[in-house]
């Protein structure tokens, strides 16, 4: 155990910042203009869930998770990091969880839940702006439906709008974990936008807390 404590985070990130950003750029470029279509799809998902279309929005979101797991993680990231193939399986599992979540009958969220959910979904859609402001080249910006972080952010917002209690937390585990790992990676790589995934984690935890509060209030009312 003491030996594992002697390892630094850098020992677990076996690639450089240059290589990682070039990978994101190649992923974006390979099926261009698919990234733009997926960004528009993210907007559609946000619009659908705001109007209560849980099933269709959840199905579309699940497809996005499956796509990120296959294209970004399995086909590209796994070549840099042995953990990539395991993360890909996690994303496919998450796709299944989202499908199940979308089939559950859920209460409508109260105002705090709606606000936190909307904020997270917006964060997922405008995520690339923060990367651009931090100095990333336009090609290397992380986009919803192509990269884990913005996909996780929008998903946490979606969950806040249609889920609560243990269902929220179960489906939030992977998005939160993915953002935590991404924040650690960007920190080790000394990327200026490293804080952003950690902000998503905090916002997701707050959203989960608010849905829990809302569910408790509902229980008391009954």
């Amino acid at each position, binding site marked *: 155990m003491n030996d594992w404590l002697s390892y630094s985070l*850098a020992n677990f990130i076996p690639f450089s910042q240059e290589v990682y950003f070039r990978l994101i750029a190649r992923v974006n470029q390979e099926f261009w203009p698919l990234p733009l279509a997926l960004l528009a799809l993210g907007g559609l998902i946000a619009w659908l869930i705001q109007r209560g279309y849980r099933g269709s929005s959840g199905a579309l979101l699940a497809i996005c998770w499956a796509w990120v797991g296959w294209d970004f993680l399995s086909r590209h990231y796994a070549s840099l990091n042995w953990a990539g193939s395991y993360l890909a399986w996690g994303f496919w599992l998450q796709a299944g969880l989202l499908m199940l979540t979308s089939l559950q009958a859920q209460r409508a969220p109260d105002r705090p839940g709606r606000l936190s959910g909307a904020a997270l979904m917006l964060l997922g859609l405008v995520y690339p702006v923060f990367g651009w402001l931090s100095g990333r080249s336009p090609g290397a910006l992380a986009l919803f439906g192509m990269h884990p972080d913005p996909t996780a952010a929008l998903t946490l917002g979606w969950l806040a709008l249609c889920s609560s209690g243990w269902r929220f937390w179960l489906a939030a585990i992977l998005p939160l974990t993915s953002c935590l790992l991404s924040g650690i990676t960007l920190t080790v790589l000394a990327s200026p936008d490293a804080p952003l995934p950690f902000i998503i984690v905090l916002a997701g935890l707050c959203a989960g807390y608010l849905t829990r509060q809302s569910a408790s209030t509902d229980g008391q009312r009954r």
Partner: protein
Amino acid sequence: MTTRRQLLKLLATAAATSGLVATDLLAAGNARPRLANGQPLPAIGMGTWITFNVGNDRALRLQRTEVLRAFFDQGGGMIDCSPMYGSAASVTGFGLAQLGQPDALFSAEKVWTWDGDDTRTQIEEQLDAWRQPAFDLVQVHNLLAWEDHLPRLFEMKAAGELRYVGITTSHGRRHDELERILSREPLDFVQLTYNLTHREAEQRLLPLAQERGIAVIANRPYDGGRLIKSLKRSAELPQWAVVELNCQTWADFLLRFIISHPAVTCAIPATTRVDHMRENMAAGTGPLPDRAMRQRMVEHIAAVL
């Protein structure tokens, strides 16, 4: 009767205490391992941690091939890799294929898995990535499951499937355990961190390796790049190093200190740049410091950092 090793030690000690600038004799205290073509293993090799992990990026693969070309053009031999390094093995294999499989290659791989039954499987996977029929050296990476892997590696060596067996650590980890392993296992190589700011291995491990005839590979010669970048930013090469050791760069200074230790066989700096590779390789061709000069180098680095 005095053995060859004892005689070499006596001569090396005499040369060191006389204050003369050492020749290669000081750095060749142990019988130097050889390349497959019979030539002695060059003292400057190369590492691939992070630097060669570029995935499927073809442009970067071609650029790393040029780094390899410079390595072999300047007399390089040992390339060190591991399954832990992502695509580094595959990128190395790509580059070696582009260069027509240089016969000066000394391939040094590692076994890195908890599963003691997976030794051979992992080696075969890495051979595929390198596009090589066999490795010169296979090492147990960071002592992981060494009790299971080492016996299997010795069996493979006896069967002629590999030439040398080794074990590695880095960052000064688990030196006590490594010392016990070196004392009792018939290892050919040990890899550990040794540089001008991390000299713990001088106390026990390097003398033990020398006594046991175990070749030593020094990893992290630039402390992961921090040491050389800091020196390049903030300090000039001392004039005495330029005059007496013909040091042209900090790479000369840092690497010659390492390979001048009588126990050290090879240092493995890593780089993504052709110009830096040429600097690294040049360090292996100049005069080496004697004991007094080495102490002066230690004091100088302590003063400037």
